[in-house]
């Protein structure tokens, strides 16, 4: 089975804090990491390869620094890595991102399954997976929490819904987005690390993927960000005073009419 895993480099959410004084995301010393959901997608791909044979290719659109993350993906079991990187991609919304990724995938050409994370923890849209499936005209399953079986060209999986889950069946090629419950990602092996050091990462530009420049980056985007600001908190901040029992009595008096 030939599997492509789409991975995105994101700032580590643990470190991202909005500084209320300057209204900026303090990114000092913030590490760029592999999007956590994509780690689960990669792990699932490697497990499928171990079970059914085949090959895992990781694909990312991002700045040159994303190479480091791709090497890490190789150390965790990916066989090949492709980085599409070009200044023309800057400012891409999900429409332009799925265009770019779909053109890169058409270059890679051969695949049975594409795995993405449920969402990226920076943009947070969860739109790239389903948009990409539509661009490639292949079936799509969101929120996959378990891949049950794969027989011939047919795959069975469970997708998480708001009120439970669905068991679904689909013919390959297809695209899935995965949730964290699907597996526990492994840590890189020594052999993997050696391989990661040596591997040649395929680098593609906008020209290499034969992209229409009109469709790329900010220019190709259907949405535009017009304003960015910090969330407002609207609390009245009425602090009750007195001894604990006095405070409880006040709170009781305030709440009773609401019950």
């Amino acid at each position, binding site marked *: 089975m030939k599997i492509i895993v789409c991975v995105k480099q994101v700032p580590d959410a643990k470190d991202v804090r909005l500084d209320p004084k300057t209204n900026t995301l303090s990114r000092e010393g913030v590490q760029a990491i592999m999007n956590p959901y994509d780690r689960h997608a990669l792990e699932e791909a490697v497990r499928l390869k171990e079970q059914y044979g085949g090959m895992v290719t990781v694909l990312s659109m991002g700045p040159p620094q994303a190479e480091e993350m791709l090497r890490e993906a190789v150390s965790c079991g990916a066989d090949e890595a492709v980085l599409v990187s070009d200044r023309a991609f800057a400012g891409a919304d999900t429409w332009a991102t799925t265009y770019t990724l779909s053109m890169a995938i058409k270059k890679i050409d051969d695949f049975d399954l594409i795995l993405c994370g449920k969402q990226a923890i920076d943009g947070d849209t969860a739109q790239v997976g389903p948009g990409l499936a539509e661009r490639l005209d292949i079936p799509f399953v969101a929120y996959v929490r378990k891949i049950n079986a794969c027989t011939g060209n047919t795959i069975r999986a469970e997708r998480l819904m708001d009120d439970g889950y669905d068991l*679904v069946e689909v013919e390959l090629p297809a695209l899935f987005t995965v949730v964290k419950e699907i597996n526990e990602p492994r840590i890189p092996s020594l052999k993997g690390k050696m391989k990661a050091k040596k591997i040649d990462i395929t680098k593609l530009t906008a020209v290499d993927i034969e992209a229409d420049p009109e469709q790329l980056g900010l220019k190709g985007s259907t949405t535009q960000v017009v304003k960015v600001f*910090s969330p407002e908190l609207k*609390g009245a901040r009425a602090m009750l005073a007195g001894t604990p029992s006095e405070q409880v009595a006040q709170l*009781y008096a305030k709440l009773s009419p609401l019950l």
Partner: protein
Amino acid sequence: MLQIDIEACIGCGVCESTCTFGAIKVDGGVAVVSETCTLCGSCVDVCEVGALSIAREEKATQGNLADWSGVWVYAECRHGRLAPVALELLGAGRKLAEKRGVPLSAVLLGSKIEGMAEELIAYGADKVFVVDDPALASFTDDAYGNALSALAKQHKPEIILAGATAIGRSFIPRVATTLATGLTADCTDLAIRDEDGALLQTRPAFGGNIMATIVCPHTRPQISTVRPLVMKPLVRDAARKGEIMKVNLDPALLKPRVKVLESVVEDLDRVNLSEADIVVAGGRGLENEKGFAMIRELADVLGGAVAASRAAVDSGWIPYPHQVGQTGKTVAPKIYIACGISGAIQHLVGMQSADTIIAINRDPDAPIFDVATYGIVGDVFEIVPMLIAKFKERKSA
């Protein structure tokens, strides 16, 4: 690319303090931009000497945007139940439609859905498109996506709203891609821009750390998924009149490539939590499972549901379906009581639209107090048992 006119730049640093992404810095007396720039444009507007610009070769505008008119709401239903978010969206959509002077329509897709269209009218729809077909009995991206896209192509609405639910976030991106238009995810605020009638879509990003307002300037429809429990439904009015349009679609469109073999409802607890009027939530401050038993007891005497911060869930004191926040449930009860929860932004985004928020925390500087209607600085192990006793008295009285 963000262009910096280094001749004009006076190195004042205003851009640096405006950029939420830390992407622009004054270095050696002039502004320098880095790779993390998202081209959001915030700095361009604040530079007083006009040193910043974004080479905005705009996307070509598709056809005549004025051909697209009307506001649509995708009315989600699953297992014979109308999703509460559908009614909330009608409330929000009604306001947008009135501002634009256009009708509000709902789109209902499913099988055996009699009676629901009338309900949508009672909650504000002028018109309901109903596709009632056995092929739509289970949710599939293909059938639902094709159906909504086909209707939108034919009737050309200017705005489509859908719930940011598992179903909405799964198939709406497909609809947007088919219609070659923009989609804004998980919105928490919607408004119409006075100058040009464009839809201003505001959403949290970076795990709730920032808010972004987004437009879709060159293509129609403008599509948003909207977070449940943020918008308010109208009061039900059975006397409202509306038109029900039964639509038959080409069966080929409703043939899914993904087969749903089984559909299991399991998380009833989770469903209850999002619909409860009173929610009592506990965090790491409860120290252990026994601490959590106290939270359950308070919830029981108040007739409410139990929720938790991620720290409490991660500690194994309570299962994940009870988690509230960015990676858990969003709730908007009448009363939310947060006990021993610090109030990290990832928690706040899941509960800050509650009507009344009570915070009990021993740290007077805990950020939870910033969203609290009433705050008590104190030990949960002292305050909560006293509250339980008080409300028990009331119950037996």
